[in-house]
């Protein structure tokens, strides 16, 4: 009955101005960017954790490389990415399971962004303090 409908290819040129989508478009882009950032971290994380298979020395040696302020800032970025991705993901799930919520999508985006920023404020202070104490 229902076969996969193969539609004609419609390659178009990449020419023109940026589409000015609103909050929804930007939250979607942020969701993608944070998602990719997190998965890249996971690749590195799988590798460094697996190093323990070569014994604690190997592991410690590699993990010590992480102990510098730049990685500290990257960690802060990672926390931000995870929190944003989680909160925005919850918003998407609400809209998925309760279509009526899409009437308030913009408000929901402002809500999740607000919670995100409120959460990031103390986290940033704590982590920056830690970086300063460790390295300077």
């Amino acid at each position, binding site marked *: 009955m229902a076969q996969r409908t193969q*539609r*004609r290819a419609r390659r178009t*040129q990449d020419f023109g101005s940026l589409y000015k989508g609103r909050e*929804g478009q930007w*939250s979607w882009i942020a969701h993608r960017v944070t998602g990719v950032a997190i998965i890249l971290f996971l690749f590195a994380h799988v590798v460094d954790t697996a190093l323990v298979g070569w014994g604690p020395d190997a592991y410690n040696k590699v993990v010590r490389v992480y102990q510098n302020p730049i990685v500290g800032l990257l960690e802060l970025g990672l926390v931000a990415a995870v929190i944003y991705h989680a909160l925005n993901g919850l918003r998407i799930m609400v809209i998925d*399971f309760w279509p009526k919520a*899409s*009437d308030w999508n913009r408000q929901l985006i402002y809500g999740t962004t607000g919670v995100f920023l409120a959460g990031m404020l103390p986290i940033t202070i704590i982590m920056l303090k830690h970086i300063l104490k460790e390295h300077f």
Partner: protein
Amino acid sequence: MKPEPWWDEFTIEAEPTDRLLDALHYVKWYKDGTLALRRSCAHGICGSDAMLINGRNALACKVLVKEVAPKVTVEPIRGLPVLKDLIVDMEPFFEGYKAILPFLINADDPPDRERLQSPEDRARFDDTTKCILCAACTTSCPIFWGDEQYIGPAAIVNAHRFIFDSRDQGAEERLEILSDQSGVFRCRTTFNCTEACPRGIKVTKAIQEVKRAVMFRRF
């Protein structure tokens, strides 16, 4: 061989209450007769003149000059092959529309009079009956630009119009088509479609209702 795309600039005078379509007419009639654009009704109902206006999809006949003056950028809608200037090949768009069987399916013998329906049943799909197939929603969708196979918001809106119609019996078939990997679940809820619809259809909401119908086979 197609020439490279380019921008052209025209300076014209217009009343603030003129429509952008009037301004485009002026360009075509008095400045550059080769300018190609589609329009028919000029009153926001035929769906011919969806364009990318200052970075957002809209109907040129529903945008007033005062909303965009002094400088406006008009581009063809995105994600469909440009044929000339503001005219795109709408065929891939209509293929998606046709794929969802946009007609009443009912195997029962035709009744002597209308197929009756309660006001509540009618209200279920009222919003999606408003579609004029202008493609403003579909060509505002980042997923549609990137995925050549994605059926697009407009097709889903029109599927919604029949899936939730109590007189129709083709919902199962349509849901099967839309559960395909190029179907309704490609939607990432960016809401660009809802913002772009010149008829004010809550497009994303309709898509979400169809997603639910696919998941729970409830409609």
